[in-house]
């Protein structure tokens, strides 16, 4: 079952929506403005009635898996339940109706919420200050690296390299490169953790920072984190924390105590702001005292209960986003933190670790476990044991879709062949974890008896596996001028066809 595009549903007979009439006497734009300033081609937007629009988008919604309906064991993405109270809070007129350029006196509640959220995040990760401006995790990474660059620069040091483990998220090297650094890869050892010997050999006076996730993307805690921090700091470099995996240890330990100087957080992972099908998120960055002068401008300050925006920050890296960040997401995260409290957040992390270990145990004989447990909040398995039957991690993922589970992250981290990365989160019940494990068992059994059938998965979804290679070929043809079909947008069929 597929749904036509809104453009294909468009009917010229549909009346435009009723809107206010011009009730003032001034001339129409077409009379007042010079012709060359005006649009000459008609605007080709679709024309649908409201009931048609609502049905169209309701049908599209029904084509999606989502955390509200499905288990989403997507490793590294922390797909946990998004409390509905968060949505209500963000939609309160006292928040949603605020203009960003209102006087400070008229937005004291909003600034206070930002200040309180900052304090709470400081408590969770163990830092001095937090900027709430970055709009997403990658944006936060880049913001932190700009601060680290400014810090070294302020000391007259020209440090040009950022070290990134081979198991890191792709955003790490990309953020480092966009921040003007050269990326130097650090190898993982056989136990899945960063190799101290390799790290030692990469560190130099050119090193600006080491970017690290802990637990790493294999779900393993870097046991030697204190030694790592010492080695990095001894060369004058800084230690950067990728907060993708913060859900593993709230209330258990803190990146600040581990020696990290800058920490980004994903409010859309750990603090339950919804993913929205790919955003909006929010990627606040916490820093230790040394980096505070370089925080993006403005910061929120509180004196005698009065809140202000501080723009007088001479060493600031400047502004990384318009206004004050994704404020609506900040409201949601703050609501979650209030409701959970310190006790609830700690419990959430403990439950997430328990869920991951339990699920790992349930499937440890079905898939390969390249690294020894226990894991933290996620684990990485490998489907290499199915390769003899011609079955790959992707086939396992697609077969899970047919069983109403979203697929785990596959082929990441890159250091594990045929990786299947599973993060169950604290949301899922024991029964859900067991039914997921049963699904894995069945798929693995089928890989041995009927591997061909797995290549055809999924069969019960609106579409089967889509041919991305053919799609890329058509896009190339368009980009090279060999075809008129843009593939990346709808285009009206030529006149006379239907």
């Amino acid at each position, binding site marked *: 079952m597929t749904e036509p595009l809104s453009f294909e549903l468009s009917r010229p007979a*549909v009346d*435009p929506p009723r809107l206010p009439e011009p009730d003032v006497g001034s001339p129409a734009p077409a009379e*007042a403005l010079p012709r060359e300033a005006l649009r000459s081609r008609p605007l080709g937007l679709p024309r649908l009635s409201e009931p048609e629009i609502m049905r169209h988008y309701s049908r599209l919604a029904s084509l999606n898996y989502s955390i509200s309906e499905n288990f989403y064991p997507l490793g590294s993405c922390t797909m946990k339940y998004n409390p509905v109270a968060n949505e209500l809070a963000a939609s309160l007129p006292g928040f949603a109706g605020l203009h960003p350029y209102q006087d400070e006196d008229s937005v004291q509640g909003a600034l206070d919420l930002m200040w309180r959220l900052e304090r709470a995040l400081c408590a969770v990760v163990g830092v001095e200050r937090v900027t709430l401006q970055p709009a997403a995790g990658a944006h936060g990474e880049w913001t932190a690296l700009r601060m680290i660059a400014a810090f070294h620069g302020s000391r007259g040091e020209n440090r040009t390299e950022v070290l990134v483990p081979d198991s890191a998220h792709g955003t790490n090297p990309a953020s480092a*490169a966009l921040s003007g650094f050269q990326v130097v890869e650090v190898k993982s050892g056989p136990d899945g953790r960063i190799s101290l010997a390799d790290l030692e050999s990469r560190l130099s006076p050119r090193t600006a920072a080491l970017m690290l996730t802990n637990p790493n993307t294999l779900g393993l805690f870097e046991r030697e984190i204190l030694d790592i921090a010492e080695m990095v700091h001894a060369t004058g470099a800084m230690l950067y924390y990728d907060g993708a995996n913060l859900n593993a240890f709230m209330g258990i330990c803190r990146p600040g105590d581990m020696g990290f100087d800058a920490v980004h957080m994903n409010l859309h992972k750990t603090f339950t702001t919804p993913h929205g099908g790919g955003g909006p998120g929010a990627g606040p960055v916490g820093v230790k005292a040394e980096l505070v002068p370089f925080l993006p401008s403005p910061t929120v300050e509180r004196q005698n209960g009065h809140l202000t925006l501080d723009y007088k920050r001479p060493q600031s890296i400047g502004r990384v986003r318009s206004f004050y*960040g994704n404020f609506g997401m900040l409201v949601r995260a703050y609501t979650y933190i209030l409701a959970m409290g310190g006790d609830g957040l700690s419990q959430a992390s403990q439950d997430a670790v328990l869920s991951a270990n339990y699920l790992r*145990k349930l499937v440890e004989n079905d898939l390969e476990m390249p690294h020894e447990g226990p894991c933290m909040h996620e684990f990485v398995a490998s489907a290499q044991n199915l390769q003899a039957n011609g079955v790959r991690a992707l086939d396992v993922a697609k077969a899970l879709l047919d069983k109403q589970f979203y697929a785990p992250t596959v082929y990441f981290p890159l250091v594990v062949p045929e990786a299947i990365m599973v993060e169950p989160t604290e949301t899922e019940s024991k029964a859900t974890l067991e039914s997921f494990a049963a699904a894995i068992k069945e798929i693995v059994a089928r890989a041995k008896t009927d591997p061909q059938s797995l290549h055809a998965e999924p069969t019960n979804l609106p579409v089967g596996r889509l041919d991305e290679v053919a*799609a890329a070929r058509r896009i190339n043809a368009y980009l090279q001028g060999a075809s008129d079909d843009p593939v990346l947008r709808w285009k009206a069929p030529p006149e006379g066809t239907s």
Partner: protein
Amino acid sequence: MLEKLGVESINDLLVDIPQSLRLDGLQLPNGLSELETMAQVSALAGRNKVYPDRLTFRGGGVYRRFIPAAVAAVTSKPEFYTAYTPYQAEASQGTLQAIFEYQSLIAELTGLDVSNASLYDGATAVAEAAMMAFVHTGRNEVIVSGYVHPEYVQVLRAFGEGRGIKVRKGGEPNKKTAAIIFQQPDFLGLLVDTRALTAAAHDAGALAIACVDPISLALLAPPGEYDADIAVGEGQQLGLAPSFGGPHVGFIACKKELVRKLPGRLVGIAHDAQGRRGFVLALAAREQHIRREKATSNICTNHSLCALAAAVYLTYMGPYGLRQVADVSFRRAHALAERLQSLPGWELAFPERQFVNEFPMRVPKAPALLRRLSRKGILGGLEVGRWFRELKGVVTFTCTEVNDARALDELVEAVSA
């Protein structure tokens, strides 16, 4: 569960964490019931002053507009707002098709070939466009022409610094110029000569980047018509609440020659083995999860849900609805400008320049005036002298379809009192 794992407590699973790092909980208050949580959050909301839509005359990048109920009815569907980035296409066709429709709508609106799946906001969209020009031309300077939103320029500078890109205010392009960036209408609401600016960029071998107001494109020539290479802008007006500045959505569209330099997600059409049409993330080889440090951008999470809102808004409005929204806003703004400039001591700051629905006025004693309006529940215009020294005493006023004729009367009355 613990038994199955052969451990006594969760602590036994945390053995890899050095003992010296272990905490005894967090220094935060304990959790609250939903009732208590909402009471606290509502109390914070209650400490903010919310101006009625119809009495809001402040813009500067964020505008009060009519938001059809259909927008929230769609974006609050959990199947949309609690889904993840659509990596597994077969289980994400709703999100993928909605983004494809959004891309098509933005391409249509801007008159350019291809739009991406969205960016964070107007400011980062400007910065990303400058990065594209830098990579495409191999030149390391961009020129910001005229009154471009000052916060967009600040973000552009911060982005540029990392890549060694110089940001120059005004002046003639030369062999080092990667792009000329201009805003139409500009930050003050005034029309700029987009054709001349575009031609000047092209004559110097640079790209033309147009930062545009999406509603105005129902009236004004879209970037594709004057041959701009990249169009960017802030999509807040397309169905999103002001929300103290975010989340909103940045849009970016370009000519097909530049598509491989586009940052972020792109959705394209693909087919399954049975020939059924579906939608997939396309040209991923530009992106960080494949290219790592060689990616066109580090962007991963974009603003899909806001893009969905924009798609619903534009579909609801259709070509004639959007045209009427732009038309009504234009007329009201001109009617207001006419009345305000007849007040003693008030004058248009740039009387020779055309505008759409936002305009700058020289106003006597602006701070006191704005305070007086606020006491009457009116959010008056924006003092732009805070960013531009030469514009001390200049206030920009904006009108949209939400400011009815009575609201204009109330403003003029309050000003004259």
